[in-house]
């Protein structure tokens, strides 16, 4: 980045590069959260057998988010009387800073990274853990008991989910032997069986545990105890309105993308398509870099979509269930995975390693293809009085009435 500004004198080229990078990241987070908000509405609609937004205009109602943005801009910026004003105004920006700083260490392609840190994975986890601060401060400073409950729940949840999340990050780190995210991406070059998730059984499980704990630490449903509408009005952001409220959501969508991108870097091959046996940026130059960026962002967006899918499919857990899932299940499983991957790295013979790699990768590919085929060929409607999908054959009142 610095080289692009080499026409400026030494101290200013770095400054210009920094400003440009910050601008790119803020724009990226803002634009992707615009897209995610629309996607969230659409996914929610389709999951609930509705159409989602259609009336505002644009193809598939994409203008809905723009209309939302205008609404948020013109809304009155209120502060409750009992609030601690300084902290109340600062909290959303604190949350946003944390999720924004995380983007510095994310490589969007081979070497396309804000700053290549030698401890990138560690830095990412450290920075994302700071996002909880904004939430706690918002909860405290609002001067409302619902907000306080939300903030405290969030604190308890994030602090405990950080532990299995960090342990799951260590599993691919043990395999890679580095904390540098860029190097990790480069190591997964080539076909999709080189992806870390298929390296051994432990990374395969670690991917799923990491993804679930990452969802929980982004306070997404089914772990959105901090903003449980049915119990806490809106949780920590009850008292916020207008732009400040939307900054919270930019932070949330930003960190959702950041953890998804981290998951794809650590486990899912980073910027590699998985179907090209070489590094595109070395073979095709600029076009390759472009392909890398598109693939990387695409993988991140897909994982964010999976988070939404989970959100609208699963009911919210209770707080004791959330804590129990973490401390009684994820933590021991993560510890076993860490020990297991160490043992595997030390003692697994070559035939076992490559055998597992091909078996699991091709098996997963076939399973996904079978699922897609099954989805596309499934009947779109069922006869009257019968249930669809997993409930096929279950007796319904209409069936009983007709005497079958």
């Amino acid at each position, binding site marked *: 980045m610095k080289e692009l500004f080499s026409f400026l004198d*030494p*101290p200013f080229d*770095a*400054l210009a590069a920094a400003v440009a990078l910050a601008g790119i990241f803020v724009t990226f987070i803002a634009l992707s959260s615009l897209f995610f908000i629309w996607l969230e509405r659409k996914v929610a609609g389709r999951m609930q057998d509705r159409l989602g937004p259609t009336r505002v205009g644009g193809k598939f109602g994409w203008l809905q988010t723009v209309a939302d943005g205008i609404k948020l801009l013109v809304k009155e910026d209120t502060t409750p009387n009992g609030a*601690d004003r*300084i*902290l109340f105004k*600062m909290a959303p920006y604190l949350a946003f800073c944390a999720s924004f700083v995380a983007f510095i260490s994310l490589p969007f392609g081979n070497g396309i990274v804000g700053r290549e*840190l*030698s*401890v990138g994975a*560690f*830095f990412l*986890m*450290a*920075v994302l*853990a*700071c996002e*909880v*601060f904004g939430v*706690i*401060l918002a909860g*405290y*400073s609002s001067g409302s008991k619902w907000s*306080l409950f939300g*903030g*405290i729940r969030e*604190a308890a949840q*994030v*602090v405990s989910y*950080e532990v299995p999340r960090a342990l799951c990050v260590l599993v691919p780190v043990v395999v890679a032997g*580095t*904390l*540098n995210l860029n190097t990790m991406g480069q190591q997964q070059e080539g076909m999709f069986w080189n992806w870390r998730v298929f390296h051994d059984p432990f990374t395969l499980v670690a991917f799923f545990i990491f993804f679930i704990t990452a969802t929980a630490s982004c306070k997404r449903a089914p772990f959105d105890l901090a903003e449980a509408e049915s119990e806490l009005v809106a949780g920590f952001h009850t008292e916020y309105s207008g732009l400040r409220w939307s900054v919270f959501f930019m932070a949330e969508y930003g960190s959702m993308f950041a953890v998804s991108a981290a998951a794809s870097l650590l486990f899912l091959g980073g910027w590699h398509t998985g179907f090209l046996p070489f590094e595109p940026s070395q073979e095709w130059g600029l076009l390759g870099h472009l392909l890398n960026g598109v693939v990387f962002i695409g993988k991140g967006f897909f994982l964010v979509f999976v988070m939404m899918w989970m959100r609208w499919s699963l009911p919210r857990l209770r707080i004791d269930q959330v804590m129990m899932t973490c401390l009684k299940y994820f933590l021991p499983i993560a510890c076993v995975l860490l020990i297991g991957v160490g043992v595997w790295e030390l003692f697994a013979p070559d035939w076992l390693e490559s055998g597992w790699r091909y078996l699991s990768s091709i098996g997963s590919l076939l399973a996904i293809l079978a699922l897609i085929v099954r989805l596309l060929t499934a009947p779109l409607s069922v006869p009257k009085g019968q249930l669809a999908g997993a409930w096929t054959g279950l007796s319904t009142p209409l069936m009983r009435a007709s005497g079958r």
Partner: protein
Amino acid sequence: MSVLDEILFAIVALGTGLGAVGVVFTRNIVRQAVCLLFTLIGISMLYFLLGAEFVGATQLIVYVGGTMVLVIFGVMLTARQEFVTIRATPVEWFTAGLLGLGLFTILAKTLPALESNASEKGQLPSTGPIGVAFLTKYLLPFEAISLHLLVVLIGAAYLARAKKRPSDLPKIPLEKEEK
């Protein structure tokens, strides 16, 4: 150090210092905690400026992510009015001032005498050498600290566990007594 480094250092150091001053002069305990947060973030930024990425990230995760969450946790759970604002007595001002002055004198005396061993710009060795040093040269201190942390963990679990003594359990009448 280039000019830019010096300017950045000045900005970050000023922010860190202001945060520290804020901790001392703010009365509200949560605001104090936030000032402390900014101080700790400032220190981790100083580490990053020096190129010590691992120490900087550790500072973030340990102090900022862990300690500060616990500070606010504690604050909120004891958020009764007498704890929310803190007022230092003159004796405390005197003692703390004396200690601070002493520390400052020692640092001001010794620091200029130290030889600057700031490395050439660029990436310092990553976690590898640290890990190797922990498991070879410094194995005993490392194990001692691990054991210490384990003891702390068990102690915390012991203190935090629900105390179930028979006398504490609420008495549930099994049947309604007939009169």
